[in-house]
């Protein structure tokens, strides 16, 4: 508790809200004399070392020398208030290179009312169902591997895609007769708070010489379907869809507003007191299909994912782009004119495709091995792929303490990456209760 209260966040509002939440959680514990209160938590510390220069994590760049900047702490509290109603919250504090820096955030916190088996309602901040593992990526004790596959679940994206706040419906159709089995569903809509250390926002702020207005979510929606046929016990098929749309204002310095022809073009359209409202609209649509099959001590799994990221600029920006293109070389070299074109150049629509296959084997009640192969195309129209082959070992020292080792062989067909072939070694020790 002292650790969380001594959180390193610099935002006094955030700090106050976290303290208020902690105090509220303690009050709930102290006054809920008639309720069963569950407290859960985990602490993990990971060492990461790569044999080459990796491009996967811009936030953790010193991996070749080895780094301990990979830690996570979770603390949660929840209660089944009655047969239909539950509520709870979990805090997360993590460090991954320049991400997190042990600032405490609300991981999830929601109320859940289950009318019946087929229909339930959740409101608050929830985990985002995306693929088989996004909802549970913080739950280290639930898997053998340390890292989720970085083509599908990139660590740099984690703060952006792990949770959302809003409204969700869920349920299970269990009583389908004959060979149909059971069907789980989740449907949700809401928004995502995008932290400033999310690499996309950070890169915009670092690379563009202007006071960028950040990145805000305009809409988020999606669904998850899970199907378990009764004719093959142990098989679960999963499908998810996520659609997110965001917008970013763009601010220009006063001298830029009074600059050359490029900015006059913006002035004539949508420039408002130095700001282009919603200068950039961007979004992604992500589809995932996956399966898990439990057979004796084996768990077989596979996933494929397609994510299309789209970008659209406001008319004023497009006009400025056109005006810039028409400038002479001398005018193009004028820094005032360059300001407006950096942003459009920096981002292109991307259509990525990834798949993975593997299995997990439980040798005994303490030792597990997992082997997987994944293939990731940063642009599905280009044949270059990234290949990751991973061996993970997990040893449960006891139920509350888990040691893991992992090695990933990375190979890229592309020669434009920093290093096209290297290894990623990870070692983790985790505690949970």
């Amino acid at each position, binding site marked *: 508790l002292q650790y969380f209260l001594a959180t390193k966040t610099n935002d006094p509002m955030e700090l106050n809200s976290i303290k208020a939440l902690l105090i509220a959680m303690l009050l709930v*514990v102290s006054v*809920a*004399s008639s*309720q*069963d*209160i*569950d*407290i*859960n938590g*985990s602490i993990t510390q990971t060492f990461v070392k790569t044999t080459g220069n990796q491009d996967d994590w811009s936030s953790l760049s010193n991996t070749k020398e080895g780094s301990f900047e990979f830690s996570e702490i*979770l603390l*949660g509290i*929840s*209660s*089944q208030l*009655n*047969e*239909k109603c*539950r509520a*709870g*919250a*979990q805090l997360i504090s993590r460090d991954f290179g320049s991400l997190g820096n042990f600032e405490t955030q609300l991981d*999830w*916190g*929601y109320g*859940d009312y*289950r009318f019946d*088996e087929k229909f339930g309602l959740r409101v608050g901040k*929830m*985990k985002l169902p995306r693929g088989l593992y996004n*909802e*549970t990526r*913080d*739950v280290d*004790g*639930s*898997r053998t591997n340390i890292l989720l596959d970085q083509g599908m679940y990139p660590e740099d994206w984690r703060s952006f895609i792990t949770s959302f706040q809003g409204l969700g419906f869920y349920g*299970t159709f*269990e009583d389908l007769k004959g060979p149909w089995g059971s069907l789980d569903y989740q449907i949700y809509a809401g928004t995502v708070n995008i932290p400033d250390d999310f690499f996309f926002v950070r890169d915009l702020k670092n690379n563009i010489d202007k006071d960028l207005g950040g990145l805000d979510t305009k809409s988020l929606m999606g669904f998850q379907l899970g199907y378990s046929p009764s004719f093959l*016990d*142990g098989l679960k098929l999963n499908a998810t869809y996520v659609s997110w749309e965001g917008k970013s204002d763009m601010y220009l310095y006063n001298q830029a507003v009074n600059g050359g022809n490029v900015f006059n073009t913006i002035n004539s359209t949508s420039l408002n007191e130095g700001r282009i409202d919603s200068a950039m609209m961007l979004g992604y649509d992500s589809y995932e299909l996956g399966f898990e099959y*439990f057979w*004796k*001590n084996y*768990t077989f799994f596979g996933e494929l994912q397609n994510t299309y990221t789209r970008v659209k600029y406001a008319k004023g920006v497009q006009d400025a782009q056109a005006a810039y293109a028409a400038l002479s070389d001398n005018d193009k070299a004028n820094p005032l004119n360059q300001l407006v074109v950096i942003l459009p150049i920096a981002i292109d629509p991307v259509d990525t495709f990834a798949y993975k296959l593997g299995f997990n084997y*439980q040798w005994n*009640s*303490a030792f*597990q091995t997992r082997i997987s192969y994944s293939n990731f195309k940063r642009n599905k129209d280009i044949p270059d792929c990234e290949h990751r082959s991973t061996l993970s070992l997990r040893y*449960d020292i*006891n*139920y*509350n303490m888990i040691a893991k080792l992992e090695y990933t062989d990375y190979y890229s067909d592309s020669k434009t990456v920093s290093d096209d072939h290297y290894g990623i070694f990870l070692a983790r020790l985790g505690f*949970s*209760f």
Partner: protein
Amino acid sequence: MMYLRFSLTISVLILGMASASGEVVVVVNAHSGLVGAKGTDILKIFTGRATQLNDIPIKPVLQKKDRSHAEFLEKYISRTNIQFSNAWKKLVFTGKASMPMVLEDDMEVIREILDDPKLIGYVDRANVGEGLTILDMSGNCENF
């Protein structure tokens, strides 16, 4: 009385001592009103997917005893101990369910069930006595 239960104390499942012999059966309080609960209902309850059956509230309890727990998982859940505990960790750490109570042995399970009609557990058939009902996979009940 405040009942503060630290989650995931299932650790003892790994460390428990094996004892007794015979068939492991699922039992409820004879006054629970749970009639006709089938294998799929038992599966839902013990995997955190249901907190009530036919509008009757129900809470699972687990055992520390290795043998009983392993036999129960094989017979009713079709998962290994680690697969089962991984699934519960996912539920608990995403706020979707509360970790079941983990009790010492058959006697403690029976005592708790006789005391609380909302509980459902598994014990050795030889230890089932008065006040309990055995639920089988087909939905048949056997009262004692």
